[in-house]
């Protein structure tokens, strides 16, 4: 090793801790400013951009939720995201089960066919997708967006779920079969409950990007009463330009469900993010 020629360079404990704390501040201070400023009237924010609220006041949330239509956007986002995730997870667990459990003719083909979707830049297909949905009468229709979102969730979900189904012991399904259960009963009563942790991972990993997506609803939804939070946000930032307190409240409302999700499933999210690296 040529290592001896390298000048000795060690981080002191204070230096590294200092760096980590400073960066934690870089992450947390903007979030802190956002949350505190939702409780300060806009006049006060203009006078002094950073400061603690003198009174606890939730008017900005009331304005964002009511006047700025966030209640509507929030419900749309919830309905669309939950339906898409449910549909994709249901379809993917059926396919993942049969692909994970059996080596039938064509099973290899179907596995790689589904997995191929993981690498495809799907947004670039927006023009044909737009025309397809238009011919089906599904433009400006929440169902159209749900179908598109569910399709985007299929590759990842089939990939993960088939791997989990493959690991389950063979004896369980055989015993059920000898008791006279058909394939669907084995799937739904015996096998599906055993992959519940994988179902949770798959659902969370679909939920976050769909909840945050801006591209598809921007193009596929036209009327404001169908908009999701990210699209609603663009109009909101134009209309409430001068009402900073409400703007900050809008940011908080949009992000809150994800923070709750993250704090309740941190380990699942972190292990899922690194699934590609661990062998």
């Amino acid at each position: 090793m040529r290592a001896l020629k390298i000048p000795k360079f060690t981080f002191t404990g204070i230096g590294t801790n200092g760096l980590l704390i400073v960066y934690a501040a870089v992450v947390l201070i903007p979030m802190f400013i956002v949350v505190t400023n939702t409780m300060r009237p806009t006049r006060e924010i203009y006078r002094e951009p950073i400061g603690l609220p003198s009174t606890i006041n939730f008017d900005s949330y009331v304005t964002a939720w009511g006047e700025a239509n966030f209640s509507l956007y929030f419900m749309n986002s919830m309905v669309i995201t939950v339906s898409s995730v449910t549909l994709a997870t249901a379809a993917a667990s059926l396919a993942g089960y049969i692909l994970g459990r059996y080596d039938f003719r064509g099973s290899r083909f179907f596995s790689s066919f589904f997995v191929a979707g993981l690498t495809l830049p799907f947004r670039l297909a927006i023009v044909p997708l737009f025309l397809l949905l238009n011919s089906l009468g599904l433009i400006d229709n929440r169902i159209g967006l749900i179908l598109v979102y569910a399709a985007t969730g299929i590759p990842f979900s089939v990939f993960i779920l088939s791997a989990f189904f493959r690991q389950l012991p063979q004896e369980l399904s055989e015993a059920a079969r000898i008791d006279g259960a058909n394939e669907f009963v084995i799937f739904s009563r015996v096998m599906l409950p055993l992959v519940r942790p994988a179902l949770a991972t798959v659902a969370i990993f679909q939920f976050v990007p769909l909840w945050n997506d801006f591209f598809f609803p921007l193009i596929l939804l036209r009327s404001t009463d169908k908009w999701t939070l990210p699209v609603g946000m663009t109009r909101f930032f134009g209309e409430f330009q001068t009402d900073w307190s409400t703007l900050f409240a809008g940011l908080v409302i949009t992000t809150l469900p994800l923070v709750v999700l993250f704090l309740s499933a941190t380990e699942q999210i972190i292990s899922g993010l690194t699934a590609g690296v661990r062998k």
Partner: protein
Amino acid sequence: MTAITGQKDEKRGQTARRRNTLMPSRLTIALFLLPAFLLYTIFMIYPLVQALIFSTFEFNGLVRGAFVGLQNFEQLFTRYPISEQLPRAFVHNVYFFIGTMLIQNTLGLLFAVLLHRPRFGKRFFRVVFTLPYLISPLVVGYLWSLMLNPLFGPVNATLRNLGLGSLARPWLGDPATALPVVILVNAWMWVGFPMLLFGAGLAGIEDDLREAARIDGASNWQIFRWIEFPLLTPVIGIVTVLTFIGNFNAFGIVWALGGVDGTPAGATDVLGLVFFRTAFRGGADAFGLASALAVLMFLFIFTVSVLVQTWFRRLESRMQ
């Protein structure tokens, strides 16, 4: 469940024949595959294949016209203003990628190394650094556009309070600083991602190697430089490809920071925005042009990803 597990032992003798005797009928297999297959094929694969075909057709609004060969592709490079916007956006994407590699991924690697060693508050830092990744790119963009507002933004206010008022500027209004700000804001959002990937890579390196080096008197830096860093090559490859794909698809965050036109003066215009404008803010023949652009972007992203992966694989095999 108890009934099933109770019978487990009796029936174990039959498992050897499972592939032949217990295979479900073709109809059953088809029914299990059908929902996922239909959803995925109709709404994902079919449009992707069609994009390829549409790029060689003329469009009039929503109606497909005649086959025009490569004319749409030619138009992308000859018709003003897209002929000017496209190369400019491409260059911005390249800067975006280089900046992200240098800032975000280097920081991510540094944090991963620091947090890999036993340390007080390790879990706290890991969670905090990953937190912004959960926020929608659009929300991150709007959040920072407020933070960086020239008049009422906390960033300039802080600078003024520290007596550094001369540094305060319209960060997103000045073409010189707008793109670097986009890169930094994007890094703020994503830094946890390379950190977690590198962290998982470091966890996969055997502690024996580090211990042996330490006994030989290696410093932390030397262990990192000569043991950990070379062994992280595959992860660096993954991070590079994912960063590349992510940067060339950037949309929401740039939209929130610079609007659909990449203000100021196109300084934050990127390919994602050009593609959107070509398809949905263009003229009657927009769909043909946008399909051609989609094909070019796909080919470029795909080719570079494959090249980068091959290069890293070769690097990896050379080390062994």
